[in-house]
């Protein structure tokens, strides 16, 4: 009960708004990027559109989502609670957010190299890898949304 008592009431509507909006922008950028890459059929313009959607929409979305998550975490006092008392859905959320962020950065680096190779006429192999990683990220974020909503555990 003392653990529960240390938690502040859920007054974090603004941080929640920031978190949800960022996550929605992140997912929107991933859907746009993955779709453009999937339907590009080797067209350089579409491949570039796919990459820049990830770079200019998904990445800022991830940053906003992650800042919002940390803001809620501190505001609700979870950072003062021992790890063993933190609910599993929060753990799932942070794991997917952080691992997903790392994969997103790797995806963007591969995409950047892929776009440069494309401009040099060296093929679009790396951008196909970017497409696969984008779809993996989308699947992971669907799980994260489910965990945030259903709060299992």
């Amino acid at each position, binding site marked *: 009960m003392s653990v529960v008592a240390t938690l502040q009431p859920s007054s974090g509507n603004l941080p929640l*708004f920031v978190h949800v909006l960022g996550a929605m922008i992140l997912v929107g950028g991933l859907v*746009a990027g993955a779709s453009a890459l999937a*339907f590009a059929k080797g067209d350089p*313009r579409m491949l570039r559109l796919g990459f820049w*959607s990830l770079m200019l*929409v998904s990445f800022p979305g991830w940053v906003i989502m992650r800042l919002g998550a940390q803001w809620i975490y501190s505001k609700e006092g979870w950072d003062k609670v021992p790890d063993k008392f933190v609910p599993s859905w929060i753990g799932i959320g942070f794991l997917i957010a952080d691992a997903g962020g790392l994969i997103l950065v790797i995806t963007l680096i591969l995409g950047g190299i892929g776009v440069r190779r494309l401009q040099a006429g060296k093929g679009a192999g790396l951008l196909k890898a970017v497409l696969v990683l984008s779809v993996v990220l989308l699947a992971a974020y669907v799980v994260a*949304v489910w965990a945030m909503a259903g*709060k299992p555990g």
Partner: protein
Amino acid sequence: MRFSDWIFALHLLSAFSLIAGLVLFWVLIIAGRNIDTPGDTLRLGPVARVGTATVGAGMVGTIVFGVWLAFARDSYAIWDGWIIAAIVLWIIGATVGRKTGEEYMNAPKKALELEEAGQTGPNPELLALNRTSRGVLMHAATSMVALLIIIDMIWKPGA
């Protein structure tokens, strides 16, 4: 997880699908501003169809699971002010969104006409259709309505 938690999860996933579709259309609107050939205009078609599907699934999912949730959870009632506000905003969003879609169909229609006429080069009329200010304003209005729904869902005014 309780049954109502699953409904809430599906409601939230639907909201993500809806907003993802709106974001995708923003990407296409910005990309389309520099497109003046029929080939490049039509190439955006399959991506736009993904947007239409995600927005469609999101619209249906949010209202169906949202209303279901209002009945499934004791803490909510369908006549709560913030729920009625959300339903009204949903109807406004659906109406403006449908008109936005119609506005953006003019460019691919023109592109098809040009292709059938054998004109594959740059066309100023097609560029103007891809840059439609009316379309941008209507999509901005749809996005603003969606944002208001999110604010309503999070703050639940009057609850």
